[in-house]
């Protein structure tokens, strides 16, 4: 008896996880797929079976297409900049031991600030009347007249991105710093003996050795960025127009402002499909670069 129990104990250990997954991941997914084929509203789930009408509507829905594009644009731009900046920063301070420890502790702050508070902070900074930006831009004579960063069709999206970059660059910095610290010492010592220039060492040694891991950091953050919701909800509510409307936010509007949950389910499923494809590529990519880094 005891032996039998012992044999299946690995499986027992996984039971709680399975229960959780079934309740909060598998059942919800089945729910999403089935309600996407109906005309559900929040008050009347699974009302009228309408086959694929929601999907037909979704494919023709300009707003949805635009919001998906916005999501990818956002994720790609912020992730690239954050990884690049994070890496350059890590490289610049790598030699200064005491300072970089302090720096890393402080770098933890933005990423662990509640996104809602981050949005509030940036809303205040961008505000035309009370904001830091307008005050100093005007005082230093860089701009004349007030700028509504979040209401301008050209500035709104970059402003949201900037808030995200403030929050997440430190995260990329910490990961890149760890990657740089983990590099083998021997090749660098050899290079110094050979008298290679700093640039050559960077180009020939550092970059090739560390690049796979930097890419891993990039991919990890990319997946986080695709879920963006809070910043948009708090800063612009998708506006002006639909310029900053990302997919998560659009689905939220359809489901909880228009109460059209059937259509929201169809949109959700399509979004999930696209993200799964990207994620699969990402995970394959991650494994590939992981192997190269070992």
């Amino acid at each position, binding site marked *: 008896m005891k032996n039998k129990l012992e044999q299946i104990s690995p499986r027992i250990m996984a039971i709680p996880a399975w229960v959780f997954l079934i309740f909060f991941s598998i059942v919800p997914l089945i729910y999403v797929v089935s309600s996407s084929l109906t005309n559900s509203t929040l008050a009347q789930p699974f009302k009228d079976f309408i086959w694929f009408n929601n999907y037909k509507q979704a494919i023709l829905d300009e707003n949805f297409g635009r919001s998906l594009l916005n999501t990818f644009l956002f994720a790609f731009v912020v992730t690239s900049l954050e990884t690049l900046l994070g890496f350059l920063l890590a490289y610049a301070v790598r030699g200064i031991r005491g300072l970089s420890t302090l720096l890393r502790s402080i770098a933890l702050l933005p990423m662990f600030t509640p996104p809602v508070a981050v949005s509030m902070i940036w809303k205040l900074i961008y505000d035309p009347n009370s904001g830091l930006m307008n005050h100093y831009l005007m005082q230093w004579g860089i701009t004349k007249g007030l700028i509504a960063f979040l209401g301008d069709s050209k500035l709104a999206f970059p402003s949201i991105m900037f808030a995200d970059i403030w929050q997440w660059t430190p995260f990329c910095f910490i990961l890149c710093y760890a990657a740089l610290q983990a590099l083998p010492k021997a090749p660098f010592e050899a290079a110094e003996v050979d008298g290679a220039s700093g640039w050559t060492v960077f180009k020939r040694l550092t970059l090739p050795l560390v690049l796979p891991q930097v890419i891993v*950091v990039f991919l990890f953050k990319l997946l986080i960025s695709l879920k963006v919701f809070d910043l948009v909800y708090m800063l612009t509510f998708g506006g002006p127009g639909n310029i900053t409307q990302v997919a998560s936010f659009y689905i939220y509007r359809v489901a909880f402002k228009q109460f059209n949950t059937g259509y929201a389910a169809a949109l959700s499923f399509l979004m999930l499909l696209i993200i799964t494809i990207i994620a699969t590529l990402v995970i394959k990519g991650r494994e590939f670069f992981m192997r190269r880094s070992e």
Partner: protein
Amino acid sequence: MTSRNIVSKIIGLIIAIGFLTIILLPIVFVAATSLKIPLEIRTSGAIFPQGGITFENWVKAFRNVPLTKYLFNSTVVAISSTLITLLIAIPTIYTVVRFKTGGAVLPSLILGTYVMPPIVVTVPIFAIVKTLELQDKLVGLILIHSMMNIPLAFWLLDSYIRNIPVELEHAAWVDGYSKFDTLVKIVYPLIKPGVLSTGVVCLIMSWNEFLFALILTYSDASKTFPIGISQYIGEHGMQFGEMSAAALAGIIPIYILVFIFSKNLVEGLGRSGLKG
């Protein structure tokens, strides 16, 4: 030390100081704003208060919304959900890594859950929570946050477990330890630093979580801090001073936590990006 080294150190120093300034400036600005006189906030965006300092905003923030209740709710949800996450995640990761339990399905399901944007499952989770009659209760939010954090814990702890030499466990089995005992007595002590940093990350993620809390909480009995401040508008429209004070009240505990554990967090995060 060569001159080139000194130059690169000075450049590094300058960059580091610039980096620090950019990180801290917004936080300092909000802290300063919370101490400004309300009318000054409406007219000027200078960093530091020009017309004297007042604690009025802090008093009003705590008086106008039940901020204490929100902070209490957030604390309960964050601590409970973190404990549940760890209790479920540690055995699962161990068994998946060591015994390949669940084959390829279980790990990819868990990672899939991580990739999934929360908005996708809000409507069904809304329905499930309703069926279980857990709406507007902290328990409901605790379960959802645990679920949300399991994949994250998986990601963060994975490399710690992989790094344990399997020989240690074999030795334990030979000594008559059951697999479960091995996990508790041999493996757990070895991955404790990882568990610690994972726990802190989960704690903070739950504290910060917005979307589920937005949809699953209704009354002050269950609203968490992010929902509380997102709905914070004064009696006469938006009051940045009061909002800043309210936001800081929720940020400060997190920052203290981060400072206490900064070493573990830096290490834990660093590893998660590097390996498995």
